[in-house]
Structure formats: structure tokens, C-alpha cells
């Protein structure tokens, strides 16, 4: 079984982001970037499937700026066998829309012919939560999103999904798209010897023009604003006062 794992280079989750002065988005120049945490979880799962002897090859792919090469190197150090970069832009502030990414991935699936695409349920930058679903639709494959457990057996994946109010277990025939949720696993730390070994693993680079996919944006960002500042709390003197405030001021009871 061959697994394709798409990984996205996103703002590191520790970074306090800043909105650009013109409100067109978040300022990404000079900001620390890393692998999207949900993609890390997907990759960890793929590597575990390989370690269990259920997968034969794990291929990490990324689309975006050339710097996504670093993200792919991390993927190789985590255990991917090889990597493919599709360079779509040279401007670090450019972002691809889910449909564009899904189309690029669909093209790669055509040539790579994986049995499973295992990816993060969403990227932590835009929180779109759409690429996996769109990819499955474009390919005409089954999909299992928000996975918290994945079992592969007899050409099918039994996937436990984290849904509102509980867990749902479904079975999808392979090939399929599975998207990883937070509790699927805890990704490993990359070891120093594996960082060294990753240097020797193949990283293939393609240009978007080689792929022949239209990535023209369909969406227009109207406005980006910082979250409202939280105002300070109030100390109340008694339970009665608390109830009064909850009723009349906050209007929650």
C-alpha cells in the first residue's frame, strides 16, 4: 500500500500573528513557519502504518512557495520515503485556495497512484477544512474525515471519526481520502540521525506550469481583523449580585 501525505507550510502555532496594515491578510514576512500540526499527525499515522508493515511507501507532497522544501525535509526526517514539491509562487504571502490544492493533489494522485491519501483535516492558518473533501470529490473516492483511529484491513479502512457529540465508526474502501483529527496520535520528535538520513532522500521539485492546473483564486478576502481584545472581568460581592449580573447584564440565564 502506498500512502500520499500532503503537508502544508503554515505559521508556527507559537507565533503571535499580526494583521497586515491594509487588512488583506496576516503578515507572513519574517515569521517562523512549520508543518501544519494536523498534517504532522497524518504523516505520523502513515509512518506508523509503514512500520507495522501495512504500507510500503510514504510520499509527502507540498504545494506553495519554494520554502516548503524545509517542511518536506522535516517530513522526510519524520519517516517519509520521498517528497514532491509543487512550486506555485515565490511570494511568501501567497496562499492557495483549497480547490487549487485539491486539483494539484488530484493530478499527483494520477501519476503516483496511491492507495490512500492521509492528510490533516485542516490547516491552522485559514482553518478551511475543505481540501480533503474536495480531493475525494474530484477523484470520486470515498472519504473519512476527522479520524481519531484508522485500521487498514482487506482493502478497506475502518475509521473512527470525531463528530459533534461523540464518535462515529465508518468503513471506506480503498483508495480513499482520510483526514486526521487531533487525537489520532502524538507525532514523534524527529531524531538527529534521521535528520541526517533525510538529506539523502529524494525530493522532487515541480513547477505549477508542469502540472497544468488552474490555481486562479476564486475567493476574495474582504477584510482581516484582529480578534477583539478581551476586557477585564468584574469582581462580585455576593451570589445574588452574580445572578443579577448573569441575568440582566450578560443575559445568559
Amino acid at each position, binding site marked *: 500500500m502506498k500512502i500520499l501525505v500532503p503537508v502544508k507550510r503554515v505559521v508556527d502555532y507559537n507565533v503571535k500573528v499580526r494583521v497586515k496594515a491594509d487588512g488583506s491578510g496576516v503578515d507572513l514576512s519574517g515569521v517562523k513557519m512549520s508543518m501544519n500540526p494536523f498534517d504532522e499527525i497524518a504523516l505520523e499515522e502513515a509512518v506508523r502504518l509503514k512500520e507495522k508493515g501495512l504500507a510500503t511507501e510514504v510520499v509527502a507532497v507540498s504545494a506553495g512557495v519554494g520554502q516548503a522544501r*524545509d517542511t518536506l525535509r522535516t517530513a522526510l*526526517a519524520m519517516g517519509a520515503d520521498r517528497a514532491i514539491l509543487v512550486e506555485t509562487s515565490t511570494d511568501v504571502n501567497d496562499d492557495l485556495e483549497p480547490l487549487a490544492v485539491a486539483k494539484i493533489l488530484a493530478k499527483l494522485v494520477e501519476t503516483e497512484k496511491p492507495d490512500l491519501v492521509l492528510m490533516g483535516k485542516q490547516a491552522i492558518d485559514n482553518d478551511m477544512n475543505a481540501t480533503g473533501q474536495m480531493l475525494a470529490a474530484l477523484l470520486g473516492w470515498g472519504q473519512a474525515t476527522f479520524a481519531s483511529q484508522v485500521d487498514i484491513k482487506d482493502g478497506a479502512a475502518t475509521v473512527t471519526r470525531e463528530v459533534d457529540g461523540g464518535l462515529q465508526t465508518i468503513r471506506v474502501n480503498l483508495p480513499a481520502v482520510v483526514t486526521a483529527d487531533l487525537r489520532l496520535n502524538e507525532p514523534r*520528535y524527529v531524531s*538527529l540521525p534521521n535528520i*541526517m538520513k533525510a*538529506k539523502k532522500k529524494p525530493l522532487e521539485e515541480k513547477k505549477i506550469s508542469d502540472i497544468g492546473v488552474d490555481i486562479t483564486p476564486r475567493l476574495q478576502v474582504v477584510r482581516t481583523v484582529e480578534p477583539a481584545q478581551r476586557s477585564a472581568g468584574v469582581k462580585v460581592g455576593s451570589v445574588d449580585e452574580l445572578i443579577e449580573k448573569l441575568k440582566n447584564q450578560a443575559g445568559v440565564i
Partner: protein
Amino acid sequence: MFLNEVQEQVLETTRSFVDAVIRPAAEALDREERFPSEIYDQMAELGLFGIGVPEELGGPGFDTLTYAVVMEELSRGYASIADQCGLVELISTLLVRHGTESQRKILPEILSMRRKVAYCITEPEAGTDVSGIRTTAERDGNGWVLNGGKIWIHNAPVADTGFVLARTNKDAGNRGMSIFIVDLHAQGVDRGPKEHKMGQRASQVGGLDFQDVRLGPDALLGEEGRGFHMMMSVLDKGRVGIASLAVGIAQAGLEAAVDYAGTRKQFGKHISEFQGVQWLLADMAKDIEAARLLVYSAASKIDRGLDATRSCSMAKCFAGDMAVARTADAVQVFGGSGYIRGFEVERLYRDAKITQIYEGTNQIQRMIIARELLRKGARS
């Protein structure tokens, strides 16, 4: 910006491990003076021991700059843990450079921490002046007999194997010393009590006593009479390691101080709004950065095969003095809290002090810098 892609990756993986595992454990380890085997096991899995050991000998084969990056990060978590990494690095460097094929067979055990090592140089009469050692190894058949004693040896209470500097020729001065690989569980080896130190208290330090310890022919590392030389040959790297360790302690202090200044309120505002506190933070940040750059410069010189002695001494001396001064500032930012056990900066200040003393006191470093200046000229 001085690191390549691979070094950045090493930094990243070490940093996340340090933040998740080492830094949260430091306070208890300091309090309990405990040898953290469980953390060392995880570090061994990540390949954080023997960073410079070539791939063909089972290590990751990284350069000195990468080693410096790892040491700073580990120390930002806890200096005692970084110092264990430094110790393994020195011993494994000695083995890689001078060990025979059969002696190198213990490398995988050392790198996995299944075999704990000690580097046994210091004696009561031989601290900075190593030529004063009195431990002797005398020929006995095709082996040796070891007699003498060592003090303040890192890992002495727990180590399996000692790398012991002993005199093999009374009349040959610095050329009359040799290094022996000694089984510390052998008959005639006695361990002194564990020392209780001011800082870096999870490092197990104590004395070792050797009485007629019989050593086989394979115990000699490298050539007889070259012990002092071998020891000196790893000093530059050792100093880069300790300099990085000092930077890591100070960096932890800065991080704690910045966080605290942004949350602690006095006179109705955060203390970070007071210029007096801002200047403390600014001075900490600039001196830490300066020390880090000295470390990177010294490490890069070693990696390029340049004469690095002056740079390594400058880095070690500046970083050690800086760490003591700037962790004192971190305590100052915390005010009374900074003087209380359990607050990180109180420990950092104690942990920093030894960086002015071990791996050559900072007075010796100044002597070396001056000697190099006067011998080789003012330009480095």
C-alpha cells in the same frame, strides 16, 4: 540566519523536546539532586548523545556548530542535562579520534546511555594545573596497575566506565601522562560520597579512589605518554560546549524575565512598562546574543579546521561571565520571588556560577586569550 537548513531542523526538534520534557522537569531534578535516567533514555532515542560521532560509527555525524546549537537548547531546559550531553560528546570524541577498533565497540552503549561514563582528570592537588596529578599507572606484565584518586568527577557515583588520566612516567612532565579506560565496577575502585553542590544539582559528582586496580593491555587509549595531548585536543570543543551551556542558562533567564515583566503589576501597571526593568531586559538580550555569536564563530572555526583556541576561550569566558551577570538580572526582575526556591530564575543563577569555573576557569581563559594575542598578534 547563521544556521543551515539541517541545523535549523536539529534546533527545532531539540527545542520542542526541551520545552515538553526537560524544562518542566528541571525544578524537581534540582530539588531531588536526581540522575534523570528516564530523560537520558529519551535523549538517546533522539540521538542527542555523541552528536559528532560519524554515521559509520553509529552517531549522527554532526559538526561543532550543530553541537553548540543542541547544547544551548538542552541547557535552556536544564544545564545538568546539557552537561551530560557535553560529557558524552567529549568521551566519544576521544574514542573516535584515538580509540582502537575494539575500544570503539563501546560507543553504541555510551551513546544509548546503557554505559555511563566519567572523565577523570581532577585531583586534590591538580585542578587547573593538570600536570600535578599523582594517580599513577605502572606497567605490570602486559597491562598496568592503577593507583591514586580523583575528585569532583562528573558521574562518578553512577558511572560504569572511567576515562582516567594517570602518570605513566614520573620524569616526562606533560609527556608522561596517559589516558586509561577503566571499568569502575572492578576490584580496587572505590567511590566517594556524592557532593552536594550550589547548582547543576542533578549532575552526580563525587570522588574515585583506585587501589591496585589491574588494567588489561587494551585499557590504554591512544599512545602511552599522549594523555595530556589528547585531553588538550578536545578542549576547544569542550569550551564551545560549556559556552553554549552558559548561553542556554541565560536565555532561559531572559525568557522567564520577559514573561514575568509582562504579567507582574506594581503601581497599577505591568513592570515591563518601567524603563528600569526594560533596560535590564535589553542588556540581558544583547549580551546573550553577543555570547551566542561568539559561540557560533568559535564553533565555525573548529568546523573549518582553523586555529580556534582564542575564539573558544573568548566564547567560554564571555558566555560564563555573561550568564552569571544576566541571570542575576533575571533574579532582579523577579524581585523577592526570584530569591525563592522553586522559581526558575533562582536555580538559573545558581546553575550559571560553575560556568565560570569548569572547563578551565575564566581566569585561565583570559591567560590563554592574552597568550594567543601576544604570540600571534592582535588580529584573530
